[in-house]
């Protein structure tokens, strides 16, 4: 196995041939922010948050293989500026209302904003009209929260082997879809395994019942208890 030697943040470092800069950075304890990356899935370089400077050029660390004579910088004012800008643009692109999101407090986009010092969004929000699909028995998708990282697409294809998810449309019209852009509940290839929900970094994919409007008060049970107590009659 060949070894490649290069410079990472001013330090000479050796890595195995074929390793990505992201893998080497993580092994060396260097923190590079990521969003579309998920351990175990193939890389797509969709989010561009892991941009690093390779001999001055901007490259995604997740897709760039180590090579001799690389001079890699993972931190610079330029990188910090771009990473912050990327998160702001993600917030501006769809309708991310953290305070009422099912993922509030457990969201990688929200955490990234905090880590990268995003205290407001400088770009005008696009406020697109996005659908919420609750046709599946167990899961829902809210396109308002989707960042198009394609983790769901990759986990469904590579780990579950179903390939229910894919991406349709271009630019601001791009959406993740199930089967041939059918409602998720009608997608016959879906095995209801839930891996896409596990992989989603935001509140786009969620378990049914976890959103505010789905809150179930289960009044029937209360009614049954009252009847049981007052009339000694058990309805359940």
């Amino acid at each position, binding site marked *: 196995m060949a070894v490649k030697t290069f410079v990472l943040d001013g330090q000479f470092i050796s890595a195995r041939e074929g390793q990505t800069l992201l893998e080497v950075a993580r092994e060396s304890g260097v923190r590079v922010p990521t969003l579309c990356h998920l351990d175990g899935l193939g890389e797509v370089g969709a989010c561009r948050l892991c941009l690093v400077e390779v001999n001055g050029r901007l490259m995604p660390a997740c897709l760039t293989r180590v090579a001799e004579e690389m001079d890699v910088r993972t931190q610079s004012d330029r990188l910090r500026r771009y990473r912050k800008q990327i998160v702001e643009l993600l917030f501006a692109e769809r309708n991310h209302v953290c305070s009422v999101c099912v993922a509030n407090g457990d969201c990688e986009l*929200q955490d990234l904003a905090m880590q990268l010092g995003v205290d407001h969004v400088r770009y005008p929000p696009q406020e697109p009209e996005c659908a919420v699909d609750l046709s599946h028995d167990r899961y829902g998708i809210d396109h308002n929260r989707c960042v198009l990282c394609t983790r769901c697409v990759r986990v469904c294809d590579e780990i579950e082997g179903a390939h229910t998810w894919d991406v349709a449309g271009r630019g601001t019209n791009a959406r993740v879809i199930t089967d041939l852009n059918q409602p998720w509940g009608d997608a016959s290839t879906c095995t209801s395994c839930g891996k896409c929900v596990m992989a989603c970094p935001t509140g786009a994919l969620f378990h049914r019942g976890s959103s505010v409007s789905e809150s179930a008060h289960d009044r029937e049970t209360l009614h049954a208890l009252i009847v049981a107590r007052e009339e000694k009659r058990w309805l359940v």
Partner: protein
Amino acid sequence: MARLRLATVWLGGCSGCHMSFLDMDEFLIELADIAEIVFSPLVDAKAYPAGVDVVLVEGAVCNVDHLEMIRRVRRDSRTLISFGDCAVTGNVSAIRNVLGGALPVLERSYVERSDPPGAIPAPDDILPGLLDRVVPVHAVVDVDLFLPGCPPSGPMIRAALETVLAGGRIDLMEHHLSFGRPGRPCRAGHAVPAPGSAPSHS
């Protein structure tokens, strides 16, 4: 030395940020020694005064009254803090924007989803006219400091005020702050600046 002139303003928000302001608890007493609240939903002043040193603005800009108010607030205040997620991002107040304008919002609220259907308020009614788009404060006027959170916690508001009153660096992101969550100061027990160290009137 005169106490600092502090104001709080309530635009299109749920007043949760103001509730959180009261969560500063006993610090409010210390604050009263160094700052005078010259305008706020919590005090009696009816008109926004001139010469305000620091103002906390809660809520997004949703209607014509908000628009007029925020311009006056900017003109008459030295340091303007966007206070909470609605002021900073639009947040819940801006969810209506996807409907595409003021009229569809009014139709949805007063006609389609009202049982029995009511009438849309007339333009000359006492209610201020809705803007077609709800926007965060910094979309209308310059903002000096952003304090995100829904709502920002009492300790976080205290940390922000202490930063400003001490004339510190205008960046709060060294604290544990994020959209949607209350946030907390990065270290507990901030020293209260002596009145003499506070910035003077410009």
